[in-house]
């Protein structure tokens, strides 16, 4: 099969959009993607991150590529290629903007030389590295064909020859007041060295450096341009060769290679940003298995956005597990506030989203399901412009959500109906739950209603755990166990000496 793209095995037209899927904000994945792509804006990578895949085969194609990139030596080669390509593009852009003919042509030649070096080293590295993925094997075949093509070889050879001719040029400038003259260099001695030698006997240890770092910005003023004109007259041949080169090669960038250069940054940018978490914090990442059905599980998983924001803090990140097997579809999370429930819900969806991009997910191991969309409902600030009350607002949003949901959707609900009475909230929640379970969608529902946790055999109860020694301390561990708000409430009461016994003791008859 001919090499098509490092992102898709087969000819695929990706409708690139800079509009993120609606769920990203609630999942904090917008922060993650912003951070991942921050230093790579020139590549315009966000559209790739905004397009999760629903095809297990393409996901596997990308996972293979990702595994190859876990070889540090190969990753370094890919990055080196990117750097050289970026440098070639900069030279090319510069050349377009310049005014003086041989200055312009000089930078064009420089761009071509850098490009040839980039392609040459990539070809060498592809041959020297053992690569398992279909993607990189296809790329290898393509690049080797390209470097041996007459087009590329002609470009490479001529560029080197022209540059060598120019590098041999050496000239003298005699600078006087208001005038200068240019002629060939004739083996005059380095005068600075002579001065240094004369005074060397006074040298005592290290000396202050008086060298001025003179501005060496690219560009040429009319004096330098005039000098270059004189140099062209002193050495006409190498410049004639440069003219010929520019005529022979009016363009040189190979389109599929340029596309590869951009697309491979999708992997590089993500791997770079998780590398810091892996190395500094020892956090696990894995390539998830793709579940054929609706059963999912993950071990030692975590919220990637939270991990990123805790990167420079000592606070340890708590890793959590989840599992839905058999008929189980919805995880109902209850427990104390600030206990990590919302983080857990986000994590569940994040893992699925990242898996669908074909990337490693934040966790020790995972088996995840494909989905058509991720639908989220997180509590919003009351919108004063909305004429509806908050409860009605909630219900309208839920209604829209359920209208979009299919059996292949993932639904994340976070503390809905918190603005109504317990009785109403229970009634409404049970009604919604019934519809969700009928739909058979996967999801997580964070709620303060213990009753929901044991709704049916399709719901799984998980609780944010408290530390037995100090009930007020959050462990941020979410564990699979029946919802029993009582244990926590009792321990908190003890801490404040408000248990029955405490109160009887404090209030003497």
């Amino acid at each position: 099969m001919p090499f098509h793209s490092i992102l898709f095995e087969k000819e695929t037209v990706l409708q690139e959009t800079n509009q993120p899927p609606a769920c990203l904000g609630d999942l904090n994945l917008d922060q993650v993607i912003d951070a991942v792509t921050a230093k790579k804006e020139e590549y315009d990578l966000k559209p790739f991150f905004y397009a999760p895949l629903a095809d297990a085969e393409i996901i596997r194609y990308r996972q293979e590529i990702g595994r190859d990139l876990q070889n540090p030596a190969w990753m370094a080669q890919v990055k080196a290629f990117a750097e050289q390509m970026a440098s070639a593009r900069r030279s090319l852009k510069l050349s377009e903007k310049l005014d003086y003919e041989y200055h312009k042509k000089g930078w064009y030649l420089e761009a071509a030389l850098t490009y040839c070096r980039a392609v040459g080293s990539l070809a060498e590295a592809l041959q020297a590295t053992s690569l398992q993925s279909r993607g990189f094997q296809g790329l290898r075949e393509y690049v080797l064909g390209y470097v041996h093509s007459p087009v590329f070889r002609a470009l490479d050879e001529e560029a080197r020859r022209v540059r060598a001719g120019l590098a041999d040029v050496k000239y003298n400038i005699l600078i006087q007041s208001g005038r200068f003259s240019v002629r060939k260099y004739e083996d005059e001695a380095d005068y600075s060295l002579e001065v240094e030698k004369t005074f060397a006997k006074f040298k005592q240890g290290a000396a202050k450096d008086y060298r001025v770092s003179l501005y060496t910005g690219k560009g040429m003023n009319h004096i330098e341009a005039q000098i270059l004109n004189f140099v062209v007259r002193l050495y006409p041949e190498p410049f004639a060769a440069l003219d010929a080169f520019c005529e022979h090669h009016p363009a040189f960038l190979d389109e599929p290679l340029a596309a590869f250069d951009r697309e491979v940054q999708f992997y590089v940018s993500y791997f770079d940003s998780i590398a810091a978490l892996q190395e500094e914090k020892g956090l696990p990442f894995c390539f998830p298995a793709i579940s054929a059905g609706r059963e999912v599980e993950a071990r030692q998983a975590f919220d990637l956005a939270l991990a990123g924001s805790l990167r420079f803090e000592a606070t340890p990140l708590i890793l959590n597990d989840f599992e839905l097997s058999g008929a189980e579809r919805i995880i109902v999370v209850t427990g104390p506030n600030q206990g990590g429930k919302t983080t857990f819900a986000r994590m569940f969806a994040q893992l699925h989203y990242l898996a669908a991009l074909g990337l490693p997910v934040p966790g020790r191991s995972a088996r995840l399901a494909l989905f058509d969309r991720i639908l989220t409902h997180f509590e919003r600030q009351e919108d004063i412009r909305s004429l509806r009350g908050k409860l009605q607002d909630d219900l309208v949003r839920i209604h829209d959500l359920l209208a979009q949901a299919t059996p292949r959707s993932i639904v994340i609900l976070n503390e809905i109906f918190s603005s109504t009475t317990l009785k109403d909230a229970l009634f409404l929640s049970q009604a919604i739950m019934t519809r969700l379970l009928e739909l058979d969608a996967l999801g997580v529902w964070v709620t303060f209603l213990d009753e929901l946790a044991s709704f049916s055999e399709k719901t799984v109860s998980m609780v944010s755990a408290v530390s037995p020694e100090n009930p007020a301390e959050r462990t941020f561990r979410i564990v699979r166990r029946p919802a029993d708000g009582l244990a926590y409430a009792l321990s908190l009461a003890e801490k404040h000496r408000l248990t029955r016994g405490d109160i009887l003791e404090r209030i003497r008859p």
Partner: protein
Amino acid sequence: MNVFLMYPDRDYDPRAPLPVNEADLTQDLALGTLFQAMAQGDKFLFETARQAILTGVEDLEALRYRQEVLKDCLKNPAVVRALYQIPIDSIQNKQRHWLGIFSRYPAGILSSAVEMLEMFVGLLRRLRQIAAEHADDFESAGFRRFFAMIEQELDEAYFAEIEAHLRQLRFRDGVLVSAELGAGNEGTNYVLRKPNPPEGPLVKRLLKRKSPVYSYTLHPRDDHGARALGELRDRGLNLVANAAAQSADHIDGFLTTLRQELAFYIGGLNLYEQLTGLGQPVAFPEARPSEERRHDFHGLYDVCLALTMKKRVVSNEGNADGKDLVMITGANQGGKSTFLRSIGLAQVMMQAGLFVPAERFTANLCSGVFTHYRREEDASMKSGKLDEELKRMSEIVDHLRPHALVLFNESFAATNEREGSEIARQVVDALLERRIKVFFVTHQYELAHGYYARALPNALFLRAERQADGSRTYKVRPGEPLPTSHGEDVYRKVFGRQEA
């Protein structure tokens, strides 16, 4: 080129760290008076004296090297002062003519550097002149090496070479720069070149010239072009400006070192002239290795007391050869403290390489002089007095090494005599065991007598003399500790008349 007048093989480091106890040492030995006498109002001489005396040498060879140099100075004061004037003039010239390298442009750096180098050449010629005229009057290894180096390195040919450079560095014929083509055909590798000397007769040269020359003259109003040409010139001059500026710095550094190292000896000269003016004797001490235990002195006096009183003061003689402990007891106001200070002063002066205030003085070197004196009570101090003393003692112990010298003056007396004596005994026994030499002034009979009773072969007991009539000679002489310090004598001296 190295000055090497303080050490035979290295520069003197004026920023070497001072011993941690420098403040105590300065206060307890009244070193300020000594520094002032050496400085004669000159701040730099003061700092040099202070630094050199507080960081003496422990190496016998280096010490003798300095003593020899100082002897030469005492013999040739006028020549040494004339030498010292050279770096002083350099500083004054720099100030008067605003010389210095402050520019941010290579052309500016270069012209400042050339001006400084021209000024230095004059001073180096004077240095060379002094060497040529007076080198034979000096005998020390330090000065002989120094003068030989000057005569060898700064010969006429060398001055001619420098002056040729200084003319060339004005670049009256323009700046010749070679360059190559870098990325984008932009000029790179700018290297300043020395024009090739013309070869053979004119005709031959004209025939030989291969390269055509293309010239361009800027329009007089082309300011942008003039600036660009200036930048190019700066690119060419960058390295040579650096070389010239560093050379100027190096010569400046050489003169600074010369000033630094001579300053110590100028201080010695000043001190010598004052003491001999007071009719006080001075002697070059015989320093012995630190492992030995020697203290043999004759006519030893407190140099600071002499300088303060501006007259001859009482001196002491004694022999503590083979002794690790010298315990001084006796009459109040009998000269115990003065004697203790004279021991400390002689030691630090000897180790700096100076002469000592005595007719004759032999002592072993030590690995550091420490003083533990009773202090006035500090109102702000939270801890008690004994607590404060013990804290200071503990700090000293942190820094003690074998063969150090510790001077105690009425230490550990801020409690009752039995406790104080016991603490002192614990401390002193440990120090002696660690081969540390101890001079201990005390009026605590229990402490002094305790050691006397032990009849240690390495202990010497001195007593401040009191005449039978109660008057003091302010001399210390060998003698067993007495149960009274004759405080009533002092009491009577102060109150006597009124009582009567």
